[in-house]
């Protein structure tokens, strides 16, 4: 399926990536090329085929519901772009 610049703008917005206006058309062409190549999958008959969800069949293990880690704000915040008294500082969210 070919996608247009408006679709790229929408997808970039969903992905939270700022794309300048002049990049939208070239990206639309690139992504359309890749999607057209991907469309050969429609040749494969997948009627009644169970989608593969894990490479090796195992059941998800459960562990005891206990605290295994934590109580260490200095390590949690060690790489924060901005922090104050054991909190992450983020841009204002509510007006």
């Amino acid at each position, binding site marked *: 399926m070919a996608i247009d610049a408006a679709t790229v703008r929408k997808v970039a917005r969903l992905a939270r990536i700022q794309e300048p206006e002049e990049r939208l058309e070239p990206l639309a062409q690139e992504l359309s090329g890749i999607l057209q190549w991907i469309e050969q999958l429609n040749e494969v008959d997948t009627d009644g085929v169970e989608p*593969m969800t894990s490479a090796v069949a195992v059941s998800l293990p459960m562990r005891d519901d206990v605290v295994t880690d934590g109580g260490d704000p200095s390590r949690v915040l060690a790489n924060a772009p901005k922090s104050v008294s054991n909190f992450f500082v983020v841009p204002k969210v509510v007006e």
Partner: protein
Amino acid sequence: MASLTSLTLKGALDGLASGAFSAVELTQAHVEAVEAARPLNAFVLETPEKALEMARASDSRRARGEAGRLDGAPLGIKDLFCTEGVRSTACSKILGDFVPTYESTVSANLFRDGAVMLGKLNMDEFAMGSSNETSAFGAVVNPWRAAGSNQALTPGGSSGGSAAAVAADLCLGATATDTGGSIRQPAAFTGTVGIKPTYGRCSRWGVAAFASSLDQAGPIAKTVEDAAILLTSMAGHDPKDSTSLPVETPDFAAFVGKSVKGLRVGVPKEYRVDGMPPEIEQLWAKGVEWLRDAGCEIVEVSLPHTKYALPAYYIVAPAEASSNLARYDGMRYGLRADGANLTEVYENTRAAGFGDEVKRRILIGTYVLSAGYYDAYYLKAQKVRRRIADDFDRAWESCDALLTPTAPSAAFGLGERQADPIAMYLNDVFTVTTNLAGLPSMSVPAGLDAGGLPLGLQLIGKALDEGTLFSLAGAVERAAGFRAKAQRWW
């Protein structure tokens, strides 16, 4: 001291055990080799002080009789692995100067066994690439050059730094990761050995996630035996990764050198692709002869859905990547750009932090997962993936392992294939199938092309049957007698 760097890992471990040299001497030689090889751009961070400190600790452990399996062996660690107190960036600007406060399980396992870390190795950004050209630190240059040429070649990707460092004798082995071929294709391009084990053999904990259902760690090494020694240390069940398999890790080195007599090796006819150089076809035929001479039974098999593996991969991998990379929002770590409001901060951060190929894949992934398209793309791809896995299951009815080429070409020139994403993706045409099916697979150097560049053969095994791969790879290695090294120009 220069000769200490030309040792294999096994040779170095034997030398350390016999007292022929110390871990400090061995490490110092490698530290100097790393410094001298900066034109290769294989390391994005050198940690010589840490390496020598670890080497001194190793020497004292050995003196107390407490040496581990890898004690004193200097290794390189791909920058995708988080290393405690040592900058880890996945070669992306978005992680900036991220310094983990924890150690990845795989690197922790290596250090538990006494390995020494020389530094962090270059790679494609977030492991997305087949030529190392998407790294925020610039491309790695392959130590190999074609005869009579000065053209800079790619070491392959994404584990290009790992492969180049091992090929140039900068380290005795390296960690790497493989989501679609990122261990095996660079190994083939540099004349080294690389194995992607069964999905779940190695813990993914502490490894920056690309496509979680495909990502798997493994070693790049100088020999099959070295790869076996390294994988034995790296693998093992880890409760911190819910997809880590609760199985015992065998001593893989015990399989190297075992007779392969009576093993049935399949040759899949679909791996003959248009435009493949005749030299690769000839090398493959030679590989078949070598294994037949070693007593294997050769059988023709069919994997009819092979050609659909790459397009299925380019739905599954970007979809999972778009989800995994949503965490890079500039709030808790890494780069944060300015913006007038929160959404703008996110958008500007991610625009400034991600490179073009990563953005391209996030956009594809976001598109195929967006409302109305999930069934047509992601679900369809997961069904095709099942078909590909079923192909292998049918093949195992008539054989124990498969032999194929690793990559459809030898190393190509840096810059040659950047313009066309699909041409770049085709590098992984022979490797990506086993990521989708979760199977172990391994590249072994088997010969040189007319230009003197290394070519690799790939062995594919049943789930958890790495042992058979190591036996077969050992047989190919012995028969090929591959001894060529890159001529030093750096």
